[in-house]
């Protein structure tokens, strides 16, 4: 009997009389799952281990390139830990947004690691793989965020492990309770909180968290003893990376938190009730895509010269113009050169008036060009002319810049941008996110 069949059978017999325990193992699998809290979570006999593996926060590079954001060794260690934990307890393991961005190459790399672990450990299990059939574009990786209905299908098919492409982080945790007959409002609200592991606690952290869901609401308890889930810390978590603390939009509906209440069970545990689920008349899916925009090379240098710093804006423009004349003698102006001057405007998106003169500034030059050699040519030429650029009142005639090391020009590889980020009406979610079953 598969893990999902066993758990669903158990809750079918319990007929609403027993709460379900969900272990939120990690807010982003592949950055390390602290073992003490995870082991403490396993001792509480959870009915599901859920792990979110991805996010759009990391920018367009990973989605565009197909690379994992996490290190291979750390990813393998985390996957081994959660896989062994779930199989030992004979409970389902659900992993969403496989391989950071959840596109086909990310999913394939994640599955390959899982198969490798299974071979090494002599494990056998039934794995549901949720794919993404969102429009395929040769110039870009495009993914749609699947909701809980995709995971519900996988669990109903009888599996031990579910690995999904890009998915709503909530769906990973809400699907099993939904299939097992728990109310969707509290299940989704619980999911929204535990997908970040113990981040909803004070002090917040990455340790595993246990949620216990019943027919009315749920209780939260971090598996790290120093982390306390308090009513205010849990309520405040609804702000996290959300544009509206009262509403969470999901493909299959909308979660209304305006009447949710939070109260302390003791100084480490909080109980939450009152979330209401409103099913959507027509589901929608959030689509994300990233497109290659060129090759990136950068220049890293600093200055401590007060005269150079005072006039840096004009000097950078002058050098840009000299470089343009040189590198475009026999080629089109096919690149973009961008400056970020740290100490002045490297971080803030809105201009700030500087009150005191700067002691030092760090200059990051960035070129995006059609090819790697072209980007390198632009930053190398820029480096040399910026170093030796003469100006009125210059005292340091041997060089304007300090290089922390050489080469200070670095080719950093392909550059991407999000070219798709919108909502798509989807009448047939099952067709959009097909399920494949694999016996490992």
């Amino acid at each position, binding site marked *: 009997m598969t893990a999902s069949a066993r758990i669903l059978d158990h809750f079918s017999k319990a007929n609403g009389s027993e709460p379900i325990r969900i272990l939120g193992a990690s807010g982003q699998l592949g950055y390390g799952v602290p073992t003490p809290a995870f082991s403490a979570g396993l001792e509480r006999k959870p009915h599901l281990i859920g792990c979110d593996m991805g996010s*759009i*926060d*990391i*920018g*367009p*590079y990973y989605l565009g390139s197909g690379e994992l954001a996490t290190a291979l060794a750390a990813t393998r260690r985390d996957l081994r830990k959660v896989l062994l934990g779930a199989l030992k307890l004979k409970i389902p393991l659900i992993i969403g947004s496989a391989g950071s961005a959840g596109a086909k190459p990310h999913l394939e790399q994640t599955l390959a690691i899982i198969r490798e672990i299974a071979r090494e450990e002599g494990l056998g299990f039934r794995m549901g793989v949720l794919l993404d059939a969102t429009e395929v574009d040769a110039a870009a990786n495009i993914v749609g965020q699947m909701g809980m209905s995709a995971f519900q299908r996988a669990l109903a098919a009888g599996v031990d492990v579910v690995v999904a492409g890009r998915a709503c982080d909530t769906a990973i945790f809400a699907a099993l309770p939904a299939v097992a007959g728990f109310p969707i409002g509290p299940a989704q609200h619980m999911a929204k909180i535990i997908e970040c592991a113990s981040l909803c606690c004070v002090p917040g952290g990455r340790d595993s968290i246990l949620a216990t869901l019943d027919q009315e609401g749920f209780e939260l308890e971090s598996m790290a003893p120093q982390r306390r889930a308090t009513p*205010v810390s849990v*309520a*405040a*978590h*609804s*702000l*996290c*990376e*959300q*544009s*509206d*603390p*009262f509403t969470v939009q999901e493909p299959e509906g909308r979660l209304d938190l305006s009447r*949710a209440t*939070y109260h302390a069970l003791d100084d480490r545990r909080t109980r939450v009730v009152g979330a209401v689920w409103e099913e959507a008349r027509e589901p929608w899916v959030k689509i994300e895509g990233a497109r290659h*925009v060129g090759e990136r090379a950068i220049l890293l240098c600093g200055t401590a010269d007060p005269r150079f710093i005072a006039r840096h804006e004009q000097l950078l423009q002058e050098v840009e113009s000299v470089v343009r004349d040189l590198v475009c003698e026999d080629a089109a102006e096919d690149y*973009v050169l*961008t400056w*970020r001057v740290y100490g002045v*405007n*490297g*971080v*803030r*998106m*809105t*201009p*700030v008036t500087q009150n005191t003169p700067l002691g030092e500034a760090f200059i990051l030059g*960035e070129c*995006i060009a059609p090819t790697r050699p072209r980007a390198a040519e632009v930053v190398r030429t820029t480096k040399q002319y910026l170093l030796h650029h003469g100006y009125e009142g210059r005292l340091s005639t041997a060089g304007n810049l300090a290089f922390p090391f050489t080469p200070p020009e670095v080719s950093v590889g392909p*550059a*991407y*941008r*999000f070219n798709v*980020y919108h909502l798509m009406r989807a009448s047939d979610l099952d067709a959009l996110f097909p399920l494949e079953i694999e016996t490992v």
Partner: protein
Amino acid sequence: MQLQDLAQVVRSKNAGPRRFTLDVIFRSDADYQRATQSEALIAEKIAPLYGVAVDAVTVINYPLGRAIKIVVPRQIMSGDPGDRDVYGAQQHTPLLRLEI
């Protein structure tokens, strides 16, 4: 008093690649009330700090979390060439010196 001396948390983060959200969280209900009543954290005051139109800014008071949430559109999409803060985690500083 400046916001940085009253608030427990002043943070920013992307809410999707097109917007960032600023969360201001207070230690006590009294501090929260003081901030909401001062009208320092309203769209008309926030918009010029971020160089955006007043009606593009959303301010949501969230008493359960003793928090004020502000949503501001990003002038450049996260990770686009020329972006300065892909995660949007360092765009909170214009709020720090607001007089409450």
